[in-house]
């Protein structure tokens, strides 16, 4: 167990140190969620005036939940970029040779993705509160919101990590981020599901992210719908992507890193 923890903590520490001390990595991670939050909550706030838009905490909180989940997913995806970079540079090959428990390598990257997102989430929450975000839910609701986002973070990392260990090159980066970007934006990002029209309404209705988003917004409003369903979806996706990532590790082992 201690040997496993040594691998997990070592990989997590190195990944986190790289991510937080390199401006080229840390700036996009920190700034993009803020850009999205500012542009959506600031530039589109009049959408609350659309007939049928009913979200008591207001438009800032409505967008905060989306950007929080988005930052969780992308902190995971950006950590996947680091995995690909480590394979490209040959570092991962040495890691595979040295680690007594190779599963710990994946878990270490996953832990780094989590800490990386925590930094972004704290910053985003502070900015949202300073911007006047109202919260109708209690402490339990907020634990639910951040718990849901944490599961999204795991899903984002295990998806991207699985790709990174299969392709073992940064050229696979679009494959890691484009599907995540699309699945997030094919949800009710700007207005509630009931106000969407046309093809986006049909797509959003069957998009699992829609349920996560509605539950997350419900947590902030203090009236979360389909909580069990949302957590079941998030945990189900987490298990599926966990399996995907560890199968990716096997492929990397077979390929010799």
């Amino acid at each position, binding site marked *: 167990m201690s040997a496993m923890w040594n691998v997990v903590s070592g990989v997590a520490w190195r990944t986190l140190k790289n991510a937080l001390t390199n401006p080229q990595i840390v700036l996009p991670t920190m700034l993009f969620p803020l850009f999205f939050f500012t542009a959506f909550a600031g*530039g589109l706030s*009049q959408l*609350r005036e659309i007939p049928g838009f009913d979200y008591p905490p207001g438009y800032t909180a409505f967008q905060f939940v989306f950007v929080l989940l988005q930052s969780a997913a992308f902190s995971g995806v950006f950590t996947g970029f680091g995995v690909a970079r480590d394979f490209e540079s040959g570092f991962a090959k040495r890691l595979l040779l040295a680690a007594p428990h190779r599963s710990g390598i994946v878990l270490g990257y996953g832990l780094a993705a989590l800490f990386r997102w925590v930094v972004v989430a704290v910053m985003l929450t502070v900015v949202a509160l300073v911007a006047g975000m109202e919260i109708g839910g209690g402490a339990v609701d907020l634990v639910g919101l951040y718990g849901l986002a944490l599961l999204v973070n795991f899903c984002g990392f295990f998806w991207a990590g699985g790709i990174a260990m299969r392709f073992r090159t940064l*050229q696979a980066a*679009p494959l890691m981020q484009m599907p995540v970007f699309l699945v997030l*934006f094919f949800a009710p*990002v700007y207005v509630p599901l009931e106000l969407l029209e046309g093809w*986006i309404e049909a797509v959003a209705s069957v998009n699992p992210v829609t349920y996560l988003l509605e539950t997350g917004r419900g947590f902030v409003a203090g009236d979360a719908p389909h909580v069990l369903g949302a957590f079941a979806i998030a945990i189900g996706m987490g298990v599926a992507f966990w399996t995907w990532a560890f199968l990716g590790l096997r492929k990397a082992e077979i390929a010799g890193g």
Partner: protein
Amino acid sequence: MSSSWPQVGAIARRSLVRTARQPASVIPPIVFPLALMTVNAAGLQSSTDLPGFPTESFLAFALAVPFIQGALFSTMNAGTDLARDVQTGFINRLALTALRDWALLSGQLAGVVALGIVQALIYLAVGLAAGVEFESGPAGVLVLLVYAAIVSLAFGALGAYLALRTGSGETIQAMFPVLFVFLFISSMNAPRDLIGVDWFRTAATLNPVSYMIECVRSLIVEGWDAQALVLGFVFVVVLGIVSIALASRALRTRMTRT
């Protein structure tokens, strides 16, 4: 002067071929703005119900954004390529030849403008195929293409200046979030008079990118709006002149024969 034209042509050709050979430089500037426009147009269609919204189609409203967003991508690409030339010593080797510095810059920018026009034609084709109607008619389409070329020139020159000044591709890439701020804090998703948050409306009003987007948007959704056109052209021409002047100065320093 006439002997310099083949030099401009050769550099322009090199710029185009090099870009075309890098799918990572060609595909994102085309696909990403279109993807963002598609999801925004679908998700924000209901905002056309707001009193005072200038059109019933959010797609028509949003079509202006890719033209400017694509130009921002071009800035990064042009800058990164030129920075690579600095880093690899290509510019130093050119300094040993008879190549004029203005010919190098003109050639580089000609390649960027050509790519910008191709991008604009693709955005235009996608918009027309999706049923967007140009209120300003065929003449408006021509004005839009001219504007797209000038925007590419201005942003390309800005990228060239950053590349020649810093000589680092990584620095150019790190500028990307800064350029993105200008796009996001603008009237890209809503008309300025419908932005409810005061500080955001003020920032969007002070942001030149708002006027560039509104210039293109006016041709699509309003017809001929002299004020929007004048403001859009003035801002982009000023940006172009300043950027070209700065890039020329930086290039003279880079190409100093010692």
